[in-house]
Structures are given as structure tokens and as C-alpha cells.
């Protein structure tokens, strides 16, 4: 980080340090996505299954009212939104332990292909949300024939 005559003497000596710091931050963000930033981890956790015909996304969402879950799929983005209100306790009730989260959540994930929003199907059973997203027609891989002379 010494300023040599080749650099022409431009810039402060800290510029190299700042560039290094920026690069280190980027590397850390890639390997430890949520811990370094102060943002809460994404909820709900999702598992994505893929096949040629489409995607299948599952999420564990216990205790949610099925009618209140909003699922929207546009192009290659799936958004799940919902709310779990805190249980109303009778008067004089005391909490010994409180670990279950409450509140509203919203999560978007990007899929590797576009999906057909009209054919998206979702089921909520035993606290697990399962969404089937068929691949959009225009995004299906097309077989390209190779012409031989």
C-alpha cells in the first residue's frame, strides 16, 4: 500500500484499505449470509425440489390459518406471506416459557425458471405448506435438432 511513483500519487493511502475491506465484507456475506448482518433470519425455512416439469416448495408453518396464507408467483419469484397472531390468554395467565414466534412473515425466493402462475397449487397439511409450481411453457427447454448436411 505504499504509494509508488507509478500510481501517480493519486488517492489517499486508505483507498487500498477500503477496497480490501469491501472485498472482505462481500466474501463474508456470501459464506455467512445472515449472521453478519443484524437482520433477522428469513422465515419460513423452505426446501425446494426441482424436476423438469416444475418446482415443489415446502415450508414448515405450524399453527397458521390456511385462509390467511398469501402465495403469489410471478415469473420466477415465489412470495409467501402470512400472519400468526399471538394467542390471547385469559386474565391472570402467566407465561413460564415463550419460544414460539408470532407475528407476520413474508418471504420471497427466486426459482431457476419461470413458472405458470395459473397452475400453481398449494396445500397446507399438519402445519406444512407444500406448493407445486409447474414450469411456464415458454421457459421449458426446447430440443434443438442439429441438422446434418
Amino acid at each position, binding site marked *: 500500500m505504499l504509494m509508488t511513483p507509478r500510481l501517480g500519487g493519486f488517492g489517499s493511502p486508505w483507498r487500498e484499505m477500503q477496497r480490501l475491506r469491501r472485498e472482505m465484507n462481500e466474501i463474508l456475506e456470501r459464506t455467512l449470509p445472515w449472521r453478519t448482518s443484524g437482520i433477522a433470519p428469513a422465515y419460513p*425455512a423452505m*426446501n*425446494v*425440489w426441482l*424436476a423438469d416439469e416444475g418446482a415443489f416448495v415446502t415450508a414448515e408453518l405450524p399453527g397458521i390459518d390456511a385462509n390467511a396464507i398469501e402465495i403469489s408467483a410471478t415469473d420466477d419469484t415465489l412470495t409467501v406471506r402470512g400472519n400468526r397472531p399471538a394467542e390471547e390468554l385469559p386474565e*391472570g395467565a402467566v407465561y*413460564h416459557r415463550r*419460544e414460539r*414466534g408470532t407475528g407476520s412473515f413474508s418471504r420471497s425466493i427466486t426459482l431457476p425458471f419461470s413458472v405458470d402462475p395459473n397452475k400453481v397449487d398449494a396445500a397446507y397439511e399438519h*402445519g406444512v405448506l407444500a406448493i407445486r409450481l409447474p414450469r411456464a411453457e415458454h421457459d421449458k427447454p426446447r430440443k434443438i435438432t442439429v441438422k446434418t448436411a
Partner: protein
Amino acid sequence: MAEQTNLQIQETEKQEVEQSAAEPTRTGYIFVPRTDIYETDEAIHVVCDMPGVRPDGADITLEQNMLSVSGHVEPTWPEGYSLNYAEYRIGDYERRFTLNTEVNEEAIEAKLNNGVLHITLPKMRPTRHKIAIQAAG
């Protein structure tokens, strides 16, 4: 209620049960279900988040003031798909609680809805014995 594990509320990842010296006979994960416990005048309520557990897969036993809750999850894989990205693992649930209040065992109720198990443990009414005094002499 005294209990060994302490769950961090900020962690949304599932926490595995600490392995004791005795290993489970099946392979697979066992997780600690997040639980709310609250007490009213009449009963103690234990609410566990166990997504993926059917009502016949849940098991609740009360033995000498120790409440054991376990839930079995049958994983279902969609046909023809392969797992591309996983943020959570699928496994059974297990947790034990020690009750410090006398509970009326006959009247315990449990409901499992949408993966949430709600156990109501009515507190034992203190029985009052009226003792008759026999006149001596």
C-alpha cells in the same frame, strides 16, 4: 417447570436434541419443538410447534410429574423431483418437562391442529379432608 434445553428465540433453525449416552435405535434427526408454557388458575397449558406430525404420530406420557412429548414425522418426497435446496431438515420431535405442580391426570386433554400440539393439564384441586375428632373418655 425445570428443563434442560434452552432454545434461542432468534434462531429459526431447528435445534437438535442433545445426544445422551443412549442413542436412538432409528437413524434420523430428532429436534426440540418450540414450546410455549403458560399457567392459568385452573390449568397448565403446554403448546408445542410440531409441523408435519399427524395426530396418530404424537405421543404424550405423564409419569411421576415428568411430561414426555414426542412426535413422529413421516417424510413425503414428491415423485420424480430431486431436492435442490434445503433450509430445514425433517425429523421427529421430542421434549421432556418436569412439572412442579400436582396435576389431575385423569383430566388431561390434548389437541393437535395444523402441527401445533396443545396440552391442557388441569391442576389438582387441593383436597380437604375434614377430620372428625373423637371425644375421649
